[in-house]
């Protein structure tokens, strides 16, 4: 299910929280809407889910010429909310509301529960699940619908490290099985890159860049986007440049800077130099075995590769 957004504006309390000129979600794609907290990501997801009445006319679903302003969605809110009753009843509610006959409903509940790793929880009270279990059931409820558009809001929020790692590993397979066109909202760079092939970077309610993930990563348009994508933004006489993660190294070169070391962090098998370059915080990973300079000293550093940025991020 393809979705096209044009001239979408959502305001709350007189303040515009989302303003998107044009955005396309190709059919069958998985897109990560990525940005800091409060940037308008969830509002974009809600607009796609039809939960922002003012936004309905700005979104067209389906092929041009045969498009509709409504589509069936499988939506998982960030906070897992369940109705009273068992996990099975909660997984079945959406199917029941969509008129799926009981026999097929039962089979689909079992299938989605098995795939999502919650089959053993089916008879449990949905309100007595651990955070990890609840997040998986929340996801399973959205996926069970096999909707043409699947919308996931921070699907890994609130999980401990182990549960997050496991679900992050399983999610691409689950989306491949149950979802077609998918939009995942996340503030986490790793999640965005691991789950999606397309990225939409939203800052202050505006889409800063959108497209195939590699394309977006290679060409951050401004300082904020570059920082979000993990680049270190540093000044040069020709303007700001964005150095990719791991791109800084000790030694003279062009472009080059003087790093004032404030602290050396020992991470077990390697060390990081933490300090500042012209007021910008810098975290430089040293190669294994390298001897770290002392805190309080200055060292010359350079970037093997970097991207020139526009003068201002704009808004």
């Amino acid at each position, binding site marked *: 299910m393809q979705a096209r957004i044009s001239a979408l504006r959502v305001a709350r309390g007189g303040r515009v929280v989302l303003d998107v000129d044009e955005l396309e979600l190709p059919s069958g794609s998985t897109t990560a809407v990525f940005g800091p907290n409060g940037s308008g990501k969830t509002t974009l997801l809600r607009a796609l*889910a039809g*939960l922002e009445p003012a936004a309905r006319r700005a979104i067209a679903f389906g092929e041009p010429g045969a498009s509709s302003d409504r589509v*069936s*969605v499988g*939506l998982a*809110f960030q906070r897992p*909310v369940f109705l009273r009753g068992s996990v099975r009843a909660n997984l079945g509610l*959406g199917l029941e509301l*969509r008129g799926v006959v009981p026999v097929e409903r039962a089979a689909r509940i079992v299938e989605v529960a098995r795939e999502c790793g919650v089959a053993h929880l089916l008879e449990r009270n949905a309100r007595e699940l651990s955070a990890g279990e609840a997040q998986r059931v929340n996801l399973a*409820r959205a996926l069970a619908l096999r909707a043409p558009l699947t919308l996931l809001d921070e699907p890994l929020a609130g999980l401990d490290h182990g549960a997050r790692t496991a679900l992050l590993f399983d999610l691409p397979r689950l989306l491949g099985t149950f979802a077609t066109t998918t939009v995942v909202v996340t503030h986490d760079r790793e999640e965005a890159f691991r789950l999606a092939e397309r990225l939409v970077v939203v800052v202050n309610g505006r889409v800063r860049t959108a497209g195939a993930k590699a394309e977006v990563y290679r060409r951050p348009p401004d300082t904020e986007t570059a920082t979000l994508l993990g680049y270190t933004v540093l000044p040069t006489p020709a303007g700001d440049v964005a150095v990719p993660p791991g791109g800084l190294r000790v030694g003279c070169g062009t472009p080059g800077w003087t790093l004032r070391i404030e602290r050396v962090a020992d991470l077990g098998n390697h060390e990081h130099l933490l300090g500042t370059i012209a007021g910008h915080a810098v975290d430089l990973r040293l190669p294994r075995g390298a001897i770290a300079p002392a805190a309080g000293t200055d060292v010359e550093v350079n970037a093997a590769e970097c991207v020139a940025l526009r003068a201002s991020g704009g808004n």
Partner: protein
Amino acid sequence: MRDLLHALTEALGLLASGDPEVAAIIGRSLAISGAATLLATAAGVPLGYLLARGRFRGRTLVLALVNTGMGLPPVVVGLVVWLVLARTGPLGGLGILYTRRAMVIAQFIIATPLVVGVTAAAVQALPEELPELLRSLGAGRLRTVWLVSREAQLGLLAAVMAGFGGVISEVGASMTVGGNLRDSTRVLTTAIVTTTGRGEVAAALALGLILLLLAFVVNLALTLIQQRRGA
């Protein structure tokens, strides 16, 4: 202490005798307060839902008014209803003052803010995302309201209990608009006032016991439903 024990013994004797007049008063109390509670539930639950979920100007003010209304003095309600239904009042033409209907109207006014207030609190206690979640799962507007109400049913039953408890035990409004007419508008609370006034302490205490028992039986039934569904 001895007087109290003596009165209690007499009261139990009166209860055991199965006095037809007492039976009629019990039936009347149940019918009037039951009808008022049913009407208050029908009006109050949707209003409470609207207040909890609606986003409109003046919502907080309305909520504050409802919460104030939960403490309405019955005698004041009775007085206002009396003024409206009195022959010279705006609805005097109906000629229903000193009838059971007038008592139902007054008790409805007392019970409704209780039902609205408790319903609003129960619905507000539900997760904010619930209605939107249900809509995204495919529920229409009415189905959403139904499912949200089902989730809030513990609170909704508490609202009904609050409404019934408020009216079965009130005396001021019933006395003012009902007139405490024997064989017509005398209910348990007004009967207690009358018998106490006559100095028949044992009879008054017996009626008081019956009132308590009645409220207990109704609330026990509602609590059983509430707790079974909430399990």
